[in-house]
């Protein structure tokens, strides 16, 4: 049953991310015009509840999605299994959440 739950979680986060990816690419195309700078990014995102929610949701979904995918690949290609496999996947998820959360906070809060 665990793999079935992970399968559902991976697909639901994928559906959640599909519109976010479109949005993110649109932002990228817009943002790189005329060059990037820290001031420019922060000017757009800081203090914005919208961007906090947008990228916060994105980080949450991608952390779950990517750790499930890597769990499958690690199992199939390195033979890792059982508790160790789940621990590694959970660690990857936590690391992505922490790093991503920090990035979102950095560019949207204040």
């Amino acid at each position, binding site marked *: 049953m665990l793999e079935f739950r992970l399968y559902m979680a991976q*697909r639901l986060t*994928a*559906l959640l*991310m*599909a519109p976010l*990816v479109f949005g993110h*690419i649109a932002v*990228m*195309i817009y943002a*790189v*015009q*005329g*060059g*990037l*700078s*820290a*001031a420019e*990014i*922060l000017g757009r995102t800081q203090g914005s509840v919208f961007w906090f929610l947008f990228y916060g949701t994105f*980080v949450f979904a*991608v952390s779950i999605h*990517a750790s499930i*995918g*890597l769990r499958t*690949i690690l199992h199939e290609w390195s033979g890792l299994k059982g508790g160790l496999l789940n621990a590694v996947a959970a660690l990857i998820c936590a*690391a*992505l959440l922490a*790093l*991503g959360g*920090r*990035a979102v906070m*950095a*560019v949207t809060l*204040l």
Partner: protein
Amino acid sequence: MRPERTHPLWLAYMLHRWSGIGLALFLPVHFWMLALAITDAAQFDAFIAITDLVIVKLAEFGLVFLLAVHMFGGLRLMALEWLPWSAPQKTLAAGAVGIAFFISGTFFLQAV
């Protein structure tokens, strides 16, 4: 030597897997750099400066490709699994959209 592997759907499976691995490896770097934007703006801008290099532009091109191909490969997979369409239709549809997306996306990035 492994002919059973080299058919279109198998290649789509490999492309999806490797683009996923590529994106997963890129994410921590991406997050770390963004955090720099506030903790050390000068270093962030120094990083941004190297994105003007051609080789870095190519890497960005690659990342957009990975993102597009992984998303459309994934949507194709979900359509195949959850919608009662036939497989070739979905592959063609997703392939066409993926290529279009890739071309237009990179066009915009290059046009800057």
